[in-house]
C-alpha cells in the first residue's frame, strides 16, 4: 500500500481504472496513480494466471502492462495520466478477435 506525502490543495485529476473513478495527481504515471489508489496488481500472467503488479517503475520489467484508451499492452509506468483516461487491467493472453 502507498500513501501520498503531500496532501496539499493541489488539483487532482480523475482517471477510470476498469471503470472505477480514481483520483490521480498531475505528473503521476498511470502505475503510480494505480498504486496510490491501492491497486497493486495490474495484470495476470499468460502462463499461470498469477496476478502481477509494477516491479521496476522505470520501463524495463513489463509487469505493468495495461490497456489505455483501447490500446493494449502499454507500460503503465511510462505513461503520464490525463484527465478522464480510461485504463483496463490486462488479463492473461490476448485472444484472437478482440
Amino acid at each position, binding site marked *: 500500500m502507498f*500513501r*501520498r*506525502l503531500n496532501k496539499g490543495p493541489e488539483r487532482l485529476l480523475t482517471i477510470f481504472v476498469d471503470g472505477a473513478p480514481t483520483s490521480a495527481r498531475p505528473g503521476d504515471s498511470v502505475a503510480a*496513480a494505480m498504486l496510490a489508489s491501492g491497486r497493486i496488481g495490474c495484470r495476470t500472467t499468460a502462463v499461470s494466471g498469477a496476478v502481477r503488479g509494477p*516491479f*521496476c517503475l*522505470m520501463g524495463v520489467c*513489463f509487469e505493468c502492462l495495461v490497456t489505455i484508451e483501447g490500446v493494449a499492452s502499454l507500460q503503465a509506468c511510462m505513461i503520464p495520466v490525463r484527465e478522464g483516461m480510461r485504463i483496463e487491467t490486462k488479463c492473461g493472453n490476448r485472444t484472437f478477435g478482440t
Partner: protein
Amino acid sequence: MIIAAGELHDEYDVAVIGAGPAGLAASAFCARAGLKCVLFDDQTGPGGQIYRSITSSPLSRHCVLGKDYWRGETIVRDALASDAHYVAGASVWGLLSSNAVAVSVSGITRQIRAARIIIATGAMERPFPIQGWTLPGVMTCGAAQILLKSSALVPEGPTVLAGCGPLLWLLAWQYLNVGVRIDAILDTTAQRNWHRLFRHAVAFATSSYMTEGLRLMYQVRRAVRVVTGIVELGAEGGERVESVLWRTRRGRFERLPCNTLLLHQGVVPNVNLAMSARVEHRWSDTQLCWVPNVDDFGSTTAPAIAVAGDGAGIAGAGAAVACGQIAAIAAIRALTNKASHKDEERNARRMLHRYQRGRTFLDLLYQPAPHFRLPRGETIVCRCEDVTARQVIETTLLGCPGPNQIKAFLRCGMGPCQGRFCGLTITELMAETRGSSCAEVGYFHLRPPAKPIALSEFAGLRSDEAAMKAVVRE
C-alpha cells in the same frame, strides 16, 4: 531545447540516447561545440533514474532526497538551455545500418540519421530472483524511490527492505526523512566479502563515498531494526505479498508480516540497445554483469557508436557526467578532424578519476552472494514466461549449450522484457550447472527492436533501405 517529435530533423551530427547524467552532459557539450545534436529519452522528463523528476518533483524540500540528488539540477538546466534537441517519451528501439536511429514516440516510429551515436541508457536493477519475488507488493528499491521522487508516494503498512548496496541505505534514509516506518532491513551483504577488501580500503577511505555512506548507514541503523547475515530470503502470499521469511547464518528462521517488500542487490548496465547494435560485450568478474568493450573515449567495436555512463559499467552519476563529456569530445574530434578541447578533456578525466576512486571497494563489498544470484527449485527466473530455476537447470543438464538454445526450449527471455530481468540469472545458472564460465556461456543474441513495438508501427515505416534491413534477414 525541448522539441516535439514532429519537429525532428532528418539528419543530425550526434544522436544521444538517454537523458541521465551521461546523456545530458554529452548532448550539452556537443551542442556548445556547435554540433547539431539530438537527445532521445523514453521517460517523460529529463534526469534519468538518478535525477528522476528533478524538474517536476513534488518534494521540493531539499533535505528529503539529499543534496546529491539536487546536484542534477544544473546538469539538466545546462542541457535544456543548449541548442540540442531533446525529445521526451522517445523510445529508441534500433540503431540500424547507415547510422539510422529508429525511435518510437506515441506509437509512431521515425527514423533519423546521425553521424555519431552516443548510447547513455544507464543502469537497471540487478535481478533478485527469490521465492515469491513476482508477488504484487514486492518491488525494487529503485521503483520505490521513483515513486517517492516523482509522485511523493511512500509505503503504508508494514514495510521491509532487503538486499545490499548503497541505494538500499539511501532509500531507507530518505524514508526516515519523511517519517516512513520501516519494520526491518534484511542485509544480505555476504560476510566473506569483507575479507577481500583490505587492498581497496585506502582508496575507499579517501573517496567521497565513505563519509557520506557511513553517515547514512549510521542514521538508519539507529532508527531501524537491521538484521545482518541473511542467507535465505523469500516473499510469501497469495494474490499479494503478506510476509517475508528469512534465515540468517546462524540458522534461525524468522517471519515478519509485510505488505511492501523492497528488494535491491545493486544495479547493472542496461545493455539491450547496445547489444542489439552489435556492440561487443564482455563479462565483468567484479561487477558480475555484461559490459561493452569500450576504449578510453567510450568508443565501441561498432562504427560511430560510443557508450557513456553506467551503461558502460557501473560507476555512478559523477563519473557518468565525465564520461558523457569525454564521449562528446571524441565525437567532436571525429566530425571536425581537429584535436580540439584538450583542456576540457583533461578536466573531465580528472573528474572521472576522482569518482572512480573507491568504486572497486563498493563493487566487491556489495557483490551479491551466490545464493541470491543462483536460485533453485521453483523460484521463478524468467518473470515474463514463468520459467523456474529447476527448469533452467534440468534443461542445461540435458545438454542445452547456451542462453539462445534454452530460450527456444523454455521461452525464457522471449517475453516483453526481452531478457532484461532473467538474462544475467540464465547466464550464471547455466555456467554454474555446466561448470564453465559466464564468458563461455554467453548471452542472448539481441536484435532490434530493443523495445517491443506494435506490428502496425513496423508497417507504417518508410520502406527505404535502412528500414528494410530492420525487418529483412540479412
